[in-house]
């Protein structure tokens, strides 16, 4: 996510020479780069253009904050504006009437049914009894899908013999009224916005159940056409909000901006996984960075660190499995990798929109100085010492310390760390823990080892 845009922005920014003030001249390249970034994130073409133009007009002539060049300042303005546009007050879901009806609509495959289950859980947890109903009489086993989810959740599911969506909806509403449920969640069939019959059906259902909330469920991977469908749904029904699904992937999710721009509706919730609890509040900051492809900065550093460690650990694990021990040479190699990552700190420093406290948090995780010292110590050893650290007695320690220009304690500390690491590694391999550890690092899933390929989500 972070990759290309950063590279291109840096390039564009370097081309910008003027300093001190944002002018037409010195932001032209940056404007184009940002527009392309938005388009690559699937922001609709007209939305991207209007957005960037607006931001540029706002930015022109603006004094550039010290330490930022005009390009960076512009990106920061874009970022802040994105946060503003994506934000806006998302009123919490509140029932109007008894029950409060939530109607979910959207294209096929957007994730409505899964979201209905998640919403049921979300609302039940907050103390309101929920009744679920599906009017999807078209897709095979659509109603069974929701019924299964409801049963798993222990939430009511409205069952009827009728195959007519309007009848099902009316009966479900009456049932929730009688049953005293606080919420009725109405899952509807996926439909194309150009399907006039199906859109008429949606309007009819809406008229019959008078929802408190009519939520447009949209796939975060949606492309350019999402503006057209969002607009058409909003025109056909008065929508009240948006739920963005499948955000756990690597889609940049420009659709969030497109839908927000054309409907003006708040994004109320985001789906973050297949599990029924994977429903979260929408955080505009996080999404602004994501659309611009800058990622969450601290999160990024953690990610890089993890990937470096992982590769290294896999190599080391292989070695240990073959019964070899971890030499100081291996240890030095690991340290070198960590030092290389220090370069990221410098990169972050240049990045727009990075808050000082984020930078501090990021650099606290990587202290290249400390690692460089340790590398220096290992450099001063003889190859034999590196392979067999037990050779290192008091006088050798003093020699090494002098060579590295550091106190003897530093050498002792390094040796202790190395010993500790070797021990930990051994234990992990012995208990089969290494596999688990690697698995945990790889999948980010809990380390408690469910058997692979079963019930793993």
């Amino acid at each position, binding site marked *: 996510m972070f990759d290309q845009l950063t590279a291109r922005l840096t390039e564009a920014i370097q081309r910008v020479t003027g300093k001190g003030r944002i002018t037409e001249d010195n932001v032209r390249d940056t404007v184009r780069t940002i527009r*392309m970034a938005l*388009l*690559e*994130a*699937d922001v*609709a*073409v007209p939305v991207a253009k209007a957005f960037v133009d607006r931001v540029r007009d706002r930015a022109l002539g603006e004094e550039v904050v010290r330490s930022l060049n005009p390009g960076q300042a512009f990106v920061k303005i874009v970022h802040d504006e994105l946060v503003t546009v994506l934000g806006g007050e998302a009123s919490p879901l509140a029932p109007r009437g008894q029950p409060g009806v939530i109607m979910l609509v959207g*294209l*096929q*495959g*957007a*994730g409505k049914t899964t979201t209905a*289950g998640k919403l049921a859980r979300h609302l039940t947890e907050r103390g309101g009894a929920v009744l679920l109903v599906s009017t999807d009489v*078209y*897709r*095979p*086993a*659509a109603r*069974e*899908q*929701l*019924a*299964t*989810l409801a049963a*798993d959740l222990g939430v009511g599911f409205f069952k009827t013999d009728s195959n007519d969506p309007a009848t099902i909806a009316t009966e479900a509403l009456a049932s929730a009224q009688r049953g005293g449920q606080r919420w009725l969640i109405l899952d509807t069939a996926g439909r*194309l*916005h*150009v399907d006039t019959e199906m859109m008429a059906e949606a309007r009819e259902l809406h008229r019959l159940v008078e929802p408190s909330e009519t939520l447009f469920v949209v*796939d975060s*991977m*949606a*492309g*350019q*056409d*999402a503006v*057209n*469908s969002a607009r058409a749904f909003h025109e056909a029904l008065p929508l009240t909000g948006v739920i963005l699904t*499948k955000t*756990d*992937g*690597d*889609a*940049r999710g*420009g*659709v969030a901006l497109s839908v927000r721009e054309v409907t003006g509706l708040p994004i109320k919730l985001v789906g973050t996984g*297949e599990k029924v609890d994977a429903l979260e509040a929408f955080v505009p900051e996080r999404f602004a960075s994501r659309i611009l492809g800058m990622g969450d900065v601290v999160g990024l550093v953690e990610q890089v660190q993890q990937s470096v460690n992982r590769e290294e650990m896999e190599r080391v694990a292989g070695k240990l499995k073959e019964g070899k021990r971890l030499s100081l040479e291996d240890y030095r190699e690991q340290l070198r990798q960590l030092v290389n990552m220090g370069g990221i700190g410098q990169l972050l420093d240049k990045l727009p929109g990075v808050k000082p406290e984020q930078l501090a948090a990021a650099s606290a995780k990587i202290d290249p100085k400390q690692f460089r010292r340790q590398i220096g110590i290992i450099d001063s050893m003889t190859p034999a010492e590196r392979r067999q650290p037990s050779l290192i007695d008091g006088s050798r320690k003093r020699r090494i310390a002098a060579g590295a220009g550091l106190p003897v304690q530093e050498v002792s500390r390094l040796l202790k760390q190395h010993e500790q690491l070797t021990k930990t590694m051994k234990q992990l391999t012995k208990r089969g823990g290494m596999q688990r550890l690697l*698995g945990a690092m*790889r*999948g980010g*899933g809990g380390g408690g080892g469910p058997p*692979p*390929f*079963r*019930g*793993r*989500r």
Partner: protein
Amino acid sequence: MAVEAKEKQGTGFFAKLKARLNRGKTWLTGDLLGLGSRPLDEATVEELETRLLTADVGVDATQWLLDEMRKANRRTPGAPASELLRQTALALMQTVEAPLVISAAHKPFVILAIGVNGTGKTTTVGKLAHRLKASGASVMLAAADTFRAAAVEQLQEWGRRAGVPVIAQAPGADPAAVVHDALVAARARNIDVVLADTAGRLHTAAGLMDELEKVKRVIARFDATAPHETLLVLDGSQGQNALAQALRFNERLKVTGLVITKLDGTAKGGILLAIARQLRLPIRYVAVGESAEDLDVFRAEEFVRALVGDGAG
């Protein structure tokens, strides 16, 4: 018995789309009256750039297409822009036109359908079952989506409609075991084609990609030449992420063919051009609706005609 997935002439998806929805003349240039005869001047290039980006072609592939058009324009100066675009896009898409041939040498011929959540895998498997059965093949379905609620029932309904058997296990079962069961049953019953439906998964979920690799391994243990087709199902209304999906799934599972679904909406599926350029994966089918017959063999000519027009202006 040789099984051929044959395309009936004249009932291609372009014709269907035209009949079903009032899309206008073409997806891309239909409302750009006059573009047809305009030469490739900078104003036209800019206009085309916008159109291509709006069709989900993506920044890279759009630039590439426009560059190629400029080159072609130098060879034949003054050629109409629409003709340049048509030729360039057609040449590209022809490199990925390769209909699926179901060879009788493999019995059963094993097709594994994969993709992210909600792209239309189950529906496509159902449609394919219908199509292959109609062409005279005996077909069996493997319900290897053991994760999503009622996914098995969904496939069973398609099986009922197509009149083909569905092998399934209890929810939560090992998908590889389900596929294995189906392969054994298919061999015993002398079945021609086994279609395995799998659970949707994001290409970024490493553990779930491992799971698919295992399914593939189990199939290969049964028949070293199988699966004979690893079919990635992409949602035609998705944007640039579809390219990431194709890249990742191909990396891990060696995709041999693509299906692009939901082209019955107003989304243009332009991401196919980007995928064609970067990956050269054969595009097998396009889906244009939810009924059994809404699946057509991909034809570059038709796709490009739908996208750009037929040059008649």
